[in-house]
Every structure is written in C-alpha cells, then in structure tokens.
C-alpha cells in the first residue's frame, strides 16, 4: 500500500489553510493546518512531515526560521514557501537555506498542486493525480 503524503500548512491567515487543505486533500494527501508557528513547530518536532507549506511573515517566528528549524531536524521534509511579500532577495534566501520551492500569493490551487506533485516525485512518492481533474469554482 502506497504511503499517504503527510502535509503541514502553516499560515497565520485562516483563509489560506481553509482553502488549501481541501485542495491538497483531493490529491490524496493527509493535511494538518496551523495558524501559530510555535504550535506548528511542536508538531513538526513530534512527527516527520513529507511536505511543509509555510508563510513567511508571521508573528514571533517567521517562515525562514521555520525552514531553518526543519532543515536542522531532517533532510527528508520538503519546504514550500508562500508569501504575499515576495522579493528577489527573500526568494534567494529561502532557496539558499533549503526551500524546495517559493511561490508568491495570490496563487491558484492548481499552482500549489503542481508544486506538490513535483515534491511528491522528488520524495519518491508520486501521486496519482492529474492537474485540472477537480475543477474548483
């Protein structure tokens, strides 16, 4: 039986998790969402996720710190950065520190799904999902 991809979403905007969770679950992934970085990091310390999607600008702990924390813990977890404040310097910093991908908000669900498919491929856990197969309104 193929292992289900475990995804964690961290964003202090409620709407992001609310929209992304069903969109990614439709791909056959198991998804947990968090609003608070500290809570998310505690969960990351308990469980090894395959993919972590994190915002950058959050209170107390930012997405780059989350990325660094994950990178210290494991090489397995792929980190996808999402941000409404994309800049070339930030993008390069995230990639240098080991992010798998970097995408600016707003984005369409299919865009993040494409990244998840690539990430799953890289992890050796390809997903049986075709972009556009579940059109959302």
């Amino acid at each position, binding site marked *: 039986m193929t292992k289900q991809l475990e995804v964690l979403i961290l964003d202090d905007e409620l709407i992001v998790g609310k929209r992304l969770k069903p969109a990614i679950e439709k791909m056959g992934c198991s998804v947990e969402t968090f609003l608070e970085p500290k809570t998310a990091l505690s969960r990351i310390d308990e469980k090894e996720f395959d993919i972590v999607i994190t915002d950058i600008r959050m209170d107390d702990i930012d997405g780059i710190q989350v990325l660094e924390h994950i990178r210290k813990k494991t090489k397995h977890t792929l980190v996808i950065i999402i941000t409404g404040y*994309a800049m*070339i310097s930030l*993008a*390069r*910093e995230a*990639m*240098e520190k*080991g*992010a798998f*991908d*970097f*995408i*600016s908000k707003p984005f369409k669900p299919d*865009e993040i799904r*494409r*990244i998840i498919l690539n990430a799953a491929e890289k992890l050796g856990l390809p997903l049986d999902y075709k972009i556009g197969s579940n059109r959302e309104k």
Partner: protein
Amino acid sequence: MTSILVSSNDKTITTDIAKQLAEKLDYTHLGEQFLEDVAQKYNTTDEKLQKALNWLISAKLLSNKSIDLHLAYIQEAVLERFLTDNVVCEGLGAHLYIKDISHILNVRILTENSDLKNNRLDDKSGYLKNFRKIIDKTNFIRTGSSNNIFIYDENDSSFYDIALNLEKIGLENIVDTITTMAKNRKFKPMTYSRKMLKDLILASKLRVLLLPRFIDFQVETKDGTAIVTIKCTKRQKAKIAGEIKVIANAIPDIKFVEVHAVLKLSPLFKNSTT
C-alpha cells in the same frame, strides 16, 4: 538550472567569457548569432536587427519605429529562450530588460575598453588623453542612453548580481567565479521566478503586437492581466483601448487588459516592459 547574463563595455571580452562559461557549464551560448533565428521568426533581416542593437550601444538618444520594433523582436525572442534554462546570454542587450528574475544571474565585467588599453603604453602625442576623453564622453552618453531607455544605468554595478574586475582578477578566475556562483542553490529556478519570467515574456509579446500601431506606451503583465499605459487624451482613450484589447486577444495567455491614458509618458518608460 540558473541562466546567466554577461555584459561589459567590451564586446570581445563579453563574448569570450560567455563562450567559456557555456562550454564549462554545458549551457547554450546565446549571442549575436541568435539574430538569425530572430530574423526568421519575425520575417525581417539580420541587418535591421543588428542596426537596432547598434543603436542600443550607440550614443544616440532618438530611435525610430523600426528600431523600436526590432528591439522588441529581439527582446521577445531572447526572453522566450530563457524559459528553457541553461543559457549564457551576451550581446543582445538582455542585461537591460531582464531584471529581478531570481534564477538569472546578471554579471557585469568591469574592463577598460580594449582600444584604450592597447594604446596605453604610447602617449607621446597626447592621443591617449584625447582618446580617454572620447571614451569617457561615450560612457557618459551611453549611461544617459541606458537611463533613458531602460531606466537603469548599465554602468552602475549595484544593478548587477555581481561585478567582476577583469584587470584585477583575470579571465580564468572570472569564469571560475561565475561558474561557482551559478551552482549556488539561491539561483535555482522556482515557481515565483518562472512566473515573473513568463510575465515579462507576455508583456514583450504584446509589445511586439502593439508597436506597429502605437508608439508611446508601456506594457506590464501579471498573472494574465496586461496593463498598458499609453500617451493619449481622455477623448481618444475609449477608441484606443478598444483597439488594444482586440490586438491583445491574439495572445491566449492574456486574460484581461487594462488601459491607462496619460497625457505625458516619461521618456524613462519608453521602450520598457516591466
């Protein structure tokens, strides 16, 4: 993979470095030979494209419609080529219109003009002093040109990701330095940078289509929305906006067009896509 832009005030040096980089990294070298492909794509001639490129590096400030159009052809074709990655580009003015794409490494080679350097040792007649004055003046005017056309001062090192002084570190070290930098993870392509490149490409495609009909305008695209700022009166705007939207329909990836009318378009924005 990271793509690379190489530029300097000396064409020979730039081409030499670009060729060495392409060989070392197993990349495609995109130089003036690419003009043949552009000529074929747009059913024009190498000569007209070369004339447009020559204008770009000349001291002249005023262009004409043909130069603008041929520069737009070059810009669109070069930008599209970058979608395939693994490119080292030089001599096509790309360092002036490819900006803020995180996976494209923009390199400036700081060098004296080779004519000036070759005459350095013999200055009994005062030729060198006068020659230097001419070069300085050309650089000053060229700085003005690049400022007027593409906003950026191409002689300002801060505009580039890295500026390397050929006289101080030598050709081999320059090639090695750029090769090492290109392998750095921070210059890897990502969804964000690819999207920005696609936006530039869309804007350049629209520019190519609009130029035969309009002159003073600027095009910007983001996520399928094109914003065209054009010099015209409010009275003319409705008619012009209608024409622009019909023209933009020819590009399938442009979903929506916004047209802004301005009475005065700053020369800083002429010939630019952002």
